[in-house]
Each structure stands twice: as structure tokens, then as C-alpha cells.
């Protein structure tokens, strides 16, 4: 009886909490969208079911990097713009610019590579800053830092907190518990209240007798569709601890944070035959790792084997998936997004963006009500 009551009570609570969402959902069920910036300097919202651009919103200033993170409610896209300096929040339903972090000020020029993230509750934005002082007759490189902006401060946002941070941080992500991850030479966690940081996952500082030093080039904060923060590494793997060069195999591997649990894992997932730029695991198929550049490749993580490789019509930098994991979306390069079947790697179609090259842009895919 008691059990029954508890269950009913919990169900009622859940129903009450979900009611507005359910009502909205009845009218307009959630479906997959993509947000993606491209040149000259704009961001588009794409209805992936219809394969159509719903809306294209202009951004201020010059293009680049085009790194994009979504607000938790999937209504606002935060885009690193103006040559790696300013972050703008744009409402994708109205094209209104609701937030801006203009980082450079006075004689301090600040650049961000691709490292910024939005807090799980959507109230704060974290950004890794590389400041330089532009003096009268010389430049002076300053120590990097993580700046915290309050999103409610809107167009006049200034850092509300600022903490010393490691150099060479390229990516950032937050998890459901509010932990901030910084991916640089290693992957660090930072306490966003105190700025205390420590190594969560060794990458370059890892010492393994059978391995060389890892190399990571990852400037796309990807993985939310699989609830992960993931980046790929390449590494030389030797037959044994004597590290004879003739025994070296070139391997792909990943460094992964589970965004639900905060658990960090790292492992090799397959042989390096071609260069790949970005990758993530297929939603609902954690044993399948996908990567792309001139080829789209699918790996069996457990067996460390390439399952299938297809040549692409041109290079694509950025991998993403539909929420159900059935389709792969490739973006970056030109204004052309291509869709592949995640099971068969057969091409399903293209979506053309208005405007020009996406270059280093991040494409985020997310389900939401229209």
C-alpha cells in the first residue's frame, strides 16, 4: 500500500512538473534541430526532419571561430565571433541578440580558442581567455584565465569572477552536476565558485610505457547528443615496453567525460589510417565511434577495429548525430551539410546553408519543440 502510494505520489509530482511541457508537446512534439554558424557571420537554425533552414540570424562583427554552445532550453545559441574575441547569445526564434561578452577592453586584447561553456542551469557562461597587453611599443602576453559572465547581464555583461587557468586550453564543457571541464594539455576540472582546478584526465602528462605522447587537435565542443564531452587523440602504440620504433602502430583513441556522472574514461578505439578532425560516439551505441574529415569512419571501440569507411564528396570537419542515433550530420567546409545513415553509412542527402563557408564552426544538434 505504502509502496503504491509512494509511486503514485511520485508520478503525480512528475506529471505536475511535466504538465506545461506535455501540453506544449501535445501541440508541437519535440524534434531534432541543428544550430550552425557560417560566413559572412550568421547562425542558422535547421529543422532536421524537414532538412530545411528555418531561420538565419546575423551576428555582429567579423566571423570566427564559429564555436557554438546551446542554452539548456535550446532557444539561445552562444557563438564565439569577431575573430575569436566576442561571444554573442542569439535567440534562434527571434534572432535577437540577448547576450554579449566583449572580451577585449582598453589595451588588453583577449582571444579565446574554442573554450567556452554554459552552466547547466543556463545562468552563467565560462570562457577561457588568452589576454595580451598592447603597450606603446611592445606586446606583453598575460597569464590565461577563466572568466565567468552572468547571462542575465545581457548585452553589457562583464566578468563577475575570474580565475587563473592553465595555458593551451582549447575546449570547455559543463556537466549536469555543474562541474566545468577544461580540455588542454590534460583535461582539468574547475570549481566555478572558487576557481580551484585539478587534472581530471591526464593526456600529455600521461606516462605509459607502451605509448608515445598523445596529440590532440580538437576545437569542436561535441558529444552532448551522447551525453558526453569527448575528444580524440592520436598516439604511437608500441608492442611492449622496449618501445621499438618498428613495432609502433598509430592509433586513434578518445578521452571522454560522461556528462551525467562525471566519469572520465580514455581508450584507444582503432587504427589511424586517415586523418580525422572530430568524432563522437553514436547515441545509444556507445561501442560505435564515428570520425570524419575526407572520410567518414565508424569504429568498433571494443574490438579497436574500423567497421566501415566511406569517402566524402569533400572534407567535413564536424560530426554530429540525430537524437535517436540513426543519422550522422557532417558540417564544416563550404556551406554544405551532408546526412549519412549511421548504420549503413549510405548518404541520405544534403542541406545547403545560405551564405558561405562554415570553416571551424561547431554544429550542435538537439531536440526541442518547434
Amino acid at each position, binding site marked *: 500500500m505504502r509502496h503504491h502510494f509512494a509511486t503514485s505520489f511520485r508520478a503525480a509530482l512528475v506529471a505536475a512538473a511535466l504538465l506545461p511541457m506535455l501540453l506544449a508537446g501535445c501541440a508541437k512534439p519535440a524534434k531534432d534541430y541543428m544550430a550552425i554558424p557560417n560566413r559572412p557571420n550568421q547562425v542558422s537554425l535547421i529543422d532536421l526532419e524537414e532538412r530545411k533552414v528555418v531561420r538565419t540570424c546575423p551576428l555582429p562583427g567579423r566571423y570566427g571561430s564559429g564555436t557554438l554552445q546551446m542554452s539548456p532550453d535550446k532557444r539561445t545559441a552562444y557563438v564565439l565571433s569577431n575573430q*575569436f574575441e566576442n561571444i554573442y547569445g542569439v535567440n534562434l526564434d527571434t534572432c535577437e541578440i540577448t547576450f554579449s561578452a566583449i572580451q577585449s577592453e582598453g589595451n588588453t586584447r583577449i*582571444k579565446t580558442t574554442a573554450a567556452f561553456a554554459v552552466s547547466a542551469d543556463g545562468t552563467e557562461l565560462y570562457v577561457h581567455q588568452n589576454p595580451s597587453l598592447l603597450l606603446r611599443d*611592445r*606586446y606583453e602576453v598575460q597569464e590565461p584565465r577563466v572568466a565567468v559572465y552572468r547571462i542575465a547581464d545581457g548585452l553589457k555583461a562583464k566578468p563577475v569572477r575570474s580565475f587563473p587557468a592553465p*595555458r593551451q586550453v582549447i575546449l570547455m564543457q559543463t556537466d549536469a552536476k555543474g562541474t566545468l571541464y577544461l580540455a588542454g594539455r590534460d583535461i582539468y576540472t574547475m570549481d566555478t565558485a572558487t576557481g580551484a582546478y585539478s587534472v581530471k584526465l591526464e593526456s600529455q602528462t600521461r606516462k605509459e610505457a607502451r605509448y608515445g605522447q598523445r596529440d590532440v587537435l580538437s576545437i569542436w565542443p561535441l558529444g552532448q547528443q551522447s551525453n558526453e564531452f569527448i575528444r580524440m587523440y592520436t598516439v604511437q602504440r608500441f608492442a611492449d615496453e622496449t618501445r621499438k620504433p618498428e613495432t609502433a602502430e598509430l592509433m586513434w583513441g578518445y578521452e571522454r567525460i560522461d556528462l551525467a556522472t562525471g566519469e572520465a574514461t580514455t581508450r584507444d578505439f582503432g587504427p589511424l589510417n586517415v586523418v580525422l578532425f572530430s568524432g563522437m560516439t553514436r547515441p545509444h551505441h556507445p561501442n560505435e565511434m564515428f570520425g570524419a574529415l575526407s572520410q567518414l569512419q565508424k569504429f568498433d571501440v571494443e574490438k579497436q577495429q574500423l567497421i566501415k569507411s566511406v569517402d566524402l*564528396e*569533400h572534407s567535413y570537419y564536424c560530426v554530429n548525430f540525430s537524437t535517436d542515433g540513426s543519422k550522422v550530420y557532417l558540417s564544416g567546409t563550404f556551406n554544405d551539410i551532408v546526412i549519412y545513415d549511421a548504420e549503413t553509412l549510405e548518404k541520405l542527402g544534403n542541406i545547403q546553408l545560405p551564405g558561405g563557408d562554415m570553416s571551424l564552426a561547431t554544429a550542435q544538434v538537439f531536440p526541442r519543440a518547434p
Partner: protein
Amino acid sequence: MKKANIWPALCLALVPFLPAQANEALLRHNCGACHGDPANPEAPLSRISEQRKSPEGWEMTLHRMQTIHGVQLSDPEGKSDSAGVLFQLVKYLSDTHGIAPAETAGLRYTLERRHNAVDIPEDAEYAVMCTRCHSNARVALQRRTEPEWRNLIHFHLAQFPTTEYQIGGRDREWFPIAIDRTLPKLAAAYPLQTPEWEAWQKAAKPALAGRWRVTGRMPGKGDFNGIMTAEAGDADSYSVSLVGEFSGGEPLHVDGHSVVYTGFEWRGNLETDSEHYLQVLEASADGSALSGRMFPFDHPERGIDLQARRDDGTPRLLAVSPAQLKRGSTATLTLSGSALAGAPQLGAGLKVERIVSRDADRLVVEASAAADADVGARAIVVGKASLPAALTVFDAVDRVEVSPAYTVGRVGGSEGSQPEVQGRFEAIAWANGPDGAAGTADDLRIGPVKAQWSVAPWNEKAAEDGDLRFAGTMDKDTGIFTPASAGPNPERKQGTNNAGNLKVIATVGEGEAAVRGEGQLLVTVQRWVNPPLW
């Protein structure tokens, strides 16, 4: 296309000729706002006074001040426009804060735009920290105080923040390494004050007016032979005319002017009706010789290696062309020099059959080699003039070396801003020597010989991708490879550009006696940043 290159290479030479002599006042007028000390107007200008550079180095600095910092160069007396002021400042800075001749030894390849030069610094870390982007010479042709080298490192990361994320940067703690390890090395190896610079500042600088006897060689066209006259103008400038021809008979006549920087860095700016050439020559300390390279403004890869010797009336033999003669054969040889008089002596086993023509500059002879003439390089004598190792007598070509063994060509043209960069090859013949084995100490270098040229896919991948069809065309007679046009090619796999990886094949001789040599040509994409110094 000429204006496409963002660096008006030697724009110093492009400006109308300016007799005005720059001075400290002009420097302070243009640079003092940022580099002067308002509290002490007599103090040396910051940064500028703490470094020394080549003329091209100073040109790049001034160019950067204009493009990045918006400097408007001006002449308070209103005599010169901004380009004129830039020229005068480069001249003044090169003269007062230049690089001494001895300090350029082994590093002139960058000044001479020899873009295929391979120069790997001994220090492996240095190679990654600096020369993964720059030539070694770009670094080593500068001298700075330690604080000034530090400023340069800060400039690099502040201006190009991706430096520490690029390959060779992200695999290490780039900035701490640059400051803690690279900086002390640079400061020790390339300090502001050196004995070489002190000595050169005191040395008398040669006057370079006169009649110059010029010899040289250009891959694809052969040996060059000419006369250059230089008439002195104001401020270390000269009016210059160069008239000559290649061994194939093609004439070359260029007129223009030159300016001498730092007392020895000759920069000529010369034109034919259709082509604009730059001369980058080094004057010897005594002013008797000039050596270096001359190349079209838009195509540094199409260069002529030049040596010039002042014609002061002394009999001199400077070159023999061709510089090889096969045993048992007869050939026409051109002996180039100055004040040539007297009988030509080719040495034992060689005979002058007849003198075809002669004057003081040139002696053309028909020469024959006996079947048992001594094999090897020998001196040639004309009257009182002699030239050691002027002619190589050989028996047979045993192997052919393609030179350069590896080079990079670039697609270009189309609608793009960059012209194509050719690959230019020569076939260097070798004999195996008495031991009959290739690659041993007794091998005899016969020298550049005529060859038939072709290209083939370098490997299976190149064959599969159709590189041979798309990358460009090789001229079978000259060894000049011209890359195809730039831009994505819809006919290619993945719509890629006309890049290619090719084997370059030189065939010397015919039939069963033919000897083949191979090199590699990588045809790649355009280089978008083309400053005078790489």
C-alpha cells in the same frame, strides 16, 4: 598579377629614385611617437636601437608597422611620399643597424629567395620552436639584445595566439619553453653587439661603379654570359644595365638601378619590356666581385645564379661553357672573362681545332678531346688568365642526379592572387670513377647536361588519384614543370585542387646507353603569405 603579392618585394627598389639621404631626424619623426621617450628626447629609440636586421628584415618591420599599427609614414619636408620615406628608412636602418657580411654567411639563401633550400638547425628544439614556421635564416639574420628577443617572443604569441595550439606548439608547454629555454639561446647566439658588426662598421665600404663581367646559370635556360655596367648616383645608388645571353642563344637585356644597403647588400631593380627582375647580390669586401641571384619579381623560382667580376683590365678567365667535354669528341666551348688575350691552352689530350671568334670578353673555340685524354676536372688557360677546374673531361655518364632531388611547386593563377610556382630541374651527370662504384669518393661530377624530361606518379596513391593528369605539365626539353591552375577541380576525387606527388625523370643519352635519374616534385597549394624573407 604583379600587384597581387601583398609584399611589394623590394618595394624599396620599386619607388621612384630618391636621392634624399635619410637620417635620424626622419626616423624620429616617423617612429618617435611610440618608440621615443617623451621625458628624454635624446634617448635612443626603444626597440629600434636594440636590434639589427637585413634590408628585407627592416622592410618587413616597416611594412608591419603600416599594416598592423596603421603607421602613416611621412616626410616633414614634404619631399617624399610614404613609399619614399619607407625606402629611406630601410636604407638608413640597414646602414646603421644592419647585418655584417660575415653574419650572412650560409644564410643568403633566404635573401636570394631560394625557396627550395633545406636548412635544418642543429638544435632540434630550436628547429621546432622557430623553424617549423620560418627559415633558419629568417631568425639568424637578426641580432637583438636579450630583452628585445623577449619582446619578439611576446609579440609572436600575442599577435598569433594559435602558435601554442598548432602542431609543434600544442605538444609542449610552448610559452614557458620559449621564454625559459629558447630566449637564452637566441640571446647568446645572436646578440646585438658582435665583433663582426664592430669590424664592418669601421671597414671602408667598396664603391661598386664600373664594368662588370657577369657569368651565371639558370635551370631551363643554361649558362649565362653578360656585361653589367653600373654608374654611381647619389646615396649609394647606381644606374645599371645588364646585357647578355644564355648558352641556348636567348638574349637578356635589363635596365634599371640598384641601391647598396649596409655597404655591401646590392639590390637591383631591373626591367625588360615585359619582365621585372630583382637582383640580390653580395659585394665582396674589396669591391671586386658581386655574387647572388636575379629573378623575376613574381617568380622567385625562376632565378639566375650570378657571379660578377669587376673588369679592371686584369686578364681573367671566369667560366667555360659547357664545362664538360667527352673523350674522343669535339665541341664548341665559350671561354668567358675579361681582358682575354693570348693563346688558349686546354691541357694535355685536348686540342683547339680552331678559334671561332674572340674579343677581350669572350673566346669561342672548337675543341677536341683525344680518346685517351685524362679524365677529370682541369684548369684552362688563356694567355695570362687561368681558371682552375674549369672543364671536366669524361668518358661516360654512369648516373644522373636530378637537381633539386626534392622540390615543391604550387598551383596558381586562375582567379586567385598567387601565380603558380614552377619546378625547375637540372640533370647533373656523374661518372663512377676508377672503382666503378657509384657514391664513392672517386666519383667524378661531370656537371649539368641536356636531358629528356618526364613525370610519373610518385606512388600508388598518386596514380590512384590521377596526379599525373591533373597536377601540371613537364616540358620535355627544359625540365621546367608548370603546375596546373588553382582552385577546387570538380573533375577530381572529392573536388580537390590540382595537387600532385610526382616522380621527375631525367633521361640522358639514348637507347641502351640511356641513363636515368629521378627526383620528386610535390605540387601543392598556394602559399598565401609571401614576405621577402620566409
